[in-house]
């Protein structure tokens, strides 16, 4: 419906008292967004990592720390035993090159049933809200949502104070086209659609573990 496009755009231009369309839209956009005002951000309650842990816990994530990545398979097995479960764990493709051995647990490439667990490696953590970030070039977005318990591993150095720092990282890492999906996840899924009562575990994971690797 290209006539709709023309009509809508010309009405907008008329309302804004503009004459015509710039020939180079990238240049016009760049000119308009050249000046970046300093952001208004909430102050952090502590240092970045501590503030991240507090905010994530406030939002329902369970916080854990391990020393090195090599401890991860053992940690997952212990966690399952602690909770009295024997889950199959969907391991994100990012772990393929790490050489980690998953002998004590059953691992999967994709989600098979609703009781599976998921293990992803977040590309950043945001202290401001206790949020983890994952992108679809690293990990299939659907496996972050279809599992019952989601474990997100984070490198301590990837925890930043504010959202804006993540946007900068994304621009640097994906200078061409950014991934199809960028997921910001803060705790387990929830709903308040029945009498405004918060119920954890709507369509996404019922539980989330964040594991910081020191």
């Amino acid at each position: 419906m290209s006539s709709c496009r023309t009509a809508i755009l010309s009405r907008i231009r008329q309302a804004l008292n503009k004459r015509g369309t710039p020939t180079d839209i990238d240049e016009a956009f760049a000119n308009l967004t050249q000046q970046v005002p300093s952001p208004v951000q909430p102050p952090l309650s502590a240092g970045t990592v501590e503030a991240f842990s507090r905010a994530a816990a406030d939002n329902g994530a369970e916080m854990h720390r391990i020393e090195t990545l090599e401890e991860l398979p053992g940690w997952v097995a212990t966690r399952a035993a602690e909770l009295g479960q024997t889950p199959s764990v969907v391991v994100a493709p990012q772990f393929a090159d790490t050489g980690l051995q998953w002998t004590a647990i059953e691992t999967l490439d994709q989600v098979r049933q609703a009781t599976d667990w998921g293990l992803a490696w977040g590309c950043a953590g945001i202290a401001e809200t206790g949020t983890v970030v994952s992108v679809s070039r690293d990990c299939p977005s659907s496996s972050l949502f279809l599992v019952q318990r989601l474990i997100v591993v984070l490198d301590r150095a990837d925890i930043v104070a504010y959202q804006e720092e993540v946007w900068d990282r994304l621009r640097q890492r994906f200078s061409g086209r950014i991934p199809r999906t960028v997921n910001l996840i803060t705790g387990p899924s929830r709903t308040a659609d029945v009498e405004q009562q918060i119920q954890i575990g709507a369509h996404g994971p019922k539980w989330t573990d964040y594991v910081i690797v020191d």
Partner: protein
Amino acid sequence: MSSVQPYVPNKDFIYRAADALADSHLQQALAKAGRGFVDKRSAAVTRVPNFEAMRDRARAVRQKALQDLDIYLLHFEKKVTEAGGQVHWAETPAQMREIVLQLCARHSATRVTKGKSMVGEEVYLNEALEKAGITPFETDLGEYILQLAKEPPSHIVAPALHKTRAQIQDLFLHHHALGERDLSAVEAIVDEARQVIRDRFLRADIGITGANLLIAETGTVAIATNEGNGDLTATLPRAHIVTTTIDRVVPTWEDASAILRVLARSATGQQTTTYTSFFTGARGDTDKDGPEAFHVVLLDNRRSQLLGSEYQEMLHCIRCGACMNHCPVYQAVGGHTYDSVYPGPMGAVLTPLLRHRDGDYQLPNASTFCGRCESVCPVKIPLPDLMRKLRNREQQEARFKGAGYWITKVFCALAASPRLYRALTSIGTKLAAALGARRGRFSKLPLLGGWTAHRDFPAPQGGSFQSQWRRNGKAQPPVGACPAGD
């Protein structure tokens, strides 16, 4: 068993309000919702010392976005196309429905999952899909409940706010053939919805979602949710269609942050929603998943006419719902009384501007002008002022002037002539004082039946305010004198 009669609203706000006040289920649900939203928002905004500065920044972002809306929309379109997606433009709801149906046909879709989209509601998308033989499955729990109940949403953030737990339980027992079971706990209801809807996610051909923001910089659609249904709707099917409007666009990711910081705090009192997801184009070669096709349908539906008008600020709205949560009228009568997808104060402004239906001007009149909506609006939209302007416009457009118009006209003439005003009010006050002298109050008065039906009207004591003022002088204000205000 629950009734699944289609919802047919009365034409008059006043009758709908009376029905709402007499509806015990609704009153029970509204009482349960009560101060929940209000208290949560208040706690969230006091937790940050600079919430006012965040509001100012969010407002500045909305202003900036509208100032060069044409450039941002064109840049957004260019970036979506570069990322393998397609942008479609619709002037009217009918055109949006047609575009979505064509896309469904192109992708041979018979099963569609839907995330919450107020724009989808605005254009009656579900009805159009059903007519075309396509089954739309709502996946947001609130929207799903309403799909079973065959009712429209009554709140833009919590669509099923008007439903009690018992009503939801009945709907589930009636519609899900799962045998005898106990659904008395909220957890049981949510678990059942999770189970029933999961299979629909996995089998859908197309997923349709709304958008909270469109980011011009990269052609990205941002969605903020708590349930995770929006993500499964956007990610699992072959194609993802976004139904949204031209005013959702912001320039950059930093601008998106400024809006997101005030959105969840104002809506649900969260620092952030559980999921904030950013979708750019179709699945690329190196993406691990995502749809093969991505379409954004941009609806105008008279929004471009608001640009540059005295109602432009209404386009700042970020759909947080705070204005309705704090509105004494909404709290008393609920969202259906507004008979529009957009209820409460924001709906009272938007509905007459976007829909132009007979009776829509009743909505800006159904306000006490207490001003709470404006005081909590994260982007500081002067809602009472906009409603006042609409009341004026109603009078200007009216072909037949009603009693209200003439009463106001007479009052204006009187108020413009202080001497006449004083003389008449003084006579009126004396007359009323004499008539009510015996009991000191009236239990019935002509034209004030609405007042006297519930309480007595006090008889004036000792002359009009102005005559008392003259008598007592400024040094001694009469007892009970009010501070200045309008």
